[in-house]
């Protein structure tokens, strides 16, 4: 009987045969933490004062959640983290401004196919775009792995999602993943490993795959994964990564469920408040007035996303009844958008350009809404209170839909412009 991706990657790591539902102990290749590193440092001290991290070279620490510091508490946390990094000789440390962790980790060449990455952030699943097994854990478990180097996993059952075809104009990866989450539900893939397969993958850029993998958690999945192909190899080569293992499921692997999507048939989708699986065709959202439009985050803050927005907004103005926030996901993207003129176009349209971080998405700071206001956002979550006000409403859509909506001040299908 053939084996799934998840079985093979854990067999590769443990050197023994693993079955579904089995619990195995492994040493993750990298452990990502961000601003919550400060809380993890405290937990470390609870176990033993002055304890050393077992494998400092496996820690990846990226400051992104509240940057620049919004208050004394976050400033103190950042300071404490910088001191810890020095004391424990952590080489993979990226201070504020480098970018959002899920963008930076791959950019720095750390999302290596065939490896296992855990992170104290639920969107750690993003690296599935590169054939990595990656998943979110909590702060306590991160502290545990810092000390012992290892943790346990229960090998999940797998789902397969077949993709074929090619998106039509004005349809993007975000529309596809929203459609999938709407169909499967917020717990539709709970505990499962989701494998994307099929001919359609070759028509998806690395950025598209990251958008899709990023949102695996929004259907409850433990992880999702794309096969490594020419596009992945080229992307990795440009970042100096040439040695890695391409782990693929066997042809005759057994899946608990299989789904199939034809990319040609996908239309622009919108997730309505207050859950990510409350997804409807854009025609049902058309005309809803928006007080704020937000393009950015680890889901859709890449250069491709900014290019889409700039194409739509070029020579146009953000409608007087709304405001547009643009947030490049990393310094690398920011720099590229400066150099190729994208940020100039967006700035001229009336957008507010924010530094590469997470602030608005989780309501930490920047872009908090007033009571009763509506935001249309490219983020991955629209939970009640998510952007800092429980009396506000968040709709999720593609960068094209958000850009088009910024021009009209109401939810607008990109093709109409």
């Amino acid at each position: 009987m053939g084996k799934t991706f998840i079985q093979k990657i854990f067999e590769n790591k443990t050197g023994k045969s693993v079955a579904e539902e089995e619990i195995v102990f492994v040493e993750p290749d990298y452990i990502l933490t961000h601003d919550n590193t400060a809380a993890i440092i405290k937990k470390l001290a609870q176990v033993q004062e002055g304890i050393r991290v077992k494998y400092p070279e496996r820690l990846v620490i990226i400051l992104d959640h509240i940057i620049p510091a919004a208050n004394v508490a976050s400033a103190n946390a950042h300071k404490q983290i910088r001191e810890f990094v020095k004391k424990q000789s952590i080489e993979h440390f990226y201070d504020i401004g480098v970018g959002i962790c899920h963008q930076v980790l791959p950019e720095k060449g750390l999302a290596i196919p065939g490896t296992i990455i855990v992170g104290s952030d639920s969107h750690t699943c993003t690296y599935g775009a590169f054939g990595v097994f990656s998943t979110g854990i909590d702060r306590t478990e991160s502290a545990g792995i810092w000390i012992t180097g290892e943790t346990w996993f229960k090998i999940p059952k797998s789902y397969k999602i077949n993709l074929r075809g090619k998106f039509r104009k004005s349809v993007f990866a975000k529309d596809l993943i929203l459609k999938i989450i709407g169909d499967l539900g917020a717990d539709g893939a709970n505990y499962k490993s989701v494998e994307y397969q099929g001919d359609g993958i070759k028509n998806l850029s690395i950025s598209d795959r990251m958008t899709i993998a990023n949102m695996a958690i929004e259907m409850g999945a433990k992880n999702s994964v794309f096969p490594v192909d020419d596009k992945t190899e080229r992307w990795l080569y440009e970042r100096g990564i040439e040695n890695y293992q391409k782990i693929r499921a066997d042809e005759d692997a057994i899946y608990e469920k299989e789904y199939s999507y034809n990319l040609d048939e996908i239309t622009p989708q919108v997730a309505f408040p207050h859950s990510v699986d409350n997804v409807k065709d854009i025609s049902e959202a058309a005309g809803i007035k928006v007080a704020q439009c937000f393009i950015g985050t680890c889901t859709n803050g890449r250069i491709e996303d900014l290019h889409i927005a700039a194409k739509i907004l070029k020579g146009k103005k953000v409608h007087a009844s709304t405001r547009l926030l643009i947030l490049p996901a990393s310094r690398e993207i920011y720099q590229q958008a400066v150099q190729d003129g994208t940020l100039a176009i967006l700035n001229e349209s009336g957008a507010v350009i924010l530094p590469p971080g997470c602030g608005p998405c989780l309501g930490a700071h920047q872009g908090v809404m007033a009571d009763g206001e509506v935001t249309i956002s490219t983020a991955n979550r629209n939970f009640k209170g998510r952007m800092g006000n429980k009396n506000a409403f968040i709709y999720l859509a593609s960068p094209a839909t958000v850009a088009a909506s910024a021009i009209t001040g109401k939810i607008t299908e990109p093709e109409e412009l």
Partner: protein
Amino acid sequence: MKVFFYNKDNINTDLMFPGKYTYESSDLEFIKEHLFEDLDVNFPKEVQKGDVILAGENFGCGSSREQPAVGLKYVGVKAIIAKSFARIFYRSATNQGLLLIECPEAVDYYKEGFSIEIDERNGNLKIGDKIFQFPPLPKQMREIIESGGLLKNIKKKIS
């Protein structure tokens, strides 16, 4: 023992502890004060040691923030019985030494006023006068819960 019955699905960690507080403080009293703030504002005032929570499918979905699990352990919640749990929350609760029981039939059967008795060793759950079975915990997880959480478990191992 009081039972908090939240008869709905997909109760996410933002409702249980709003994101805007996640980097403010990890002080336990602070977490308690805001626990379930967008779900049930009375919860911190009413909850007492030994209480039980009942909920629907996919309890604890969303963010990996651990304050909900930390807070529920701190206020002394004895167990959470739900139709299903989101996976990060399941790990997170285990890491705090909080007992989770997945038993959809029991949640469907429960009515206000019913008593609840839990025998986690044998996987028995008595709701009113009816007994439900749930799969006992795997050994690794039982050890963590019995030590009072992952860090206490590690502390025991390394000392």
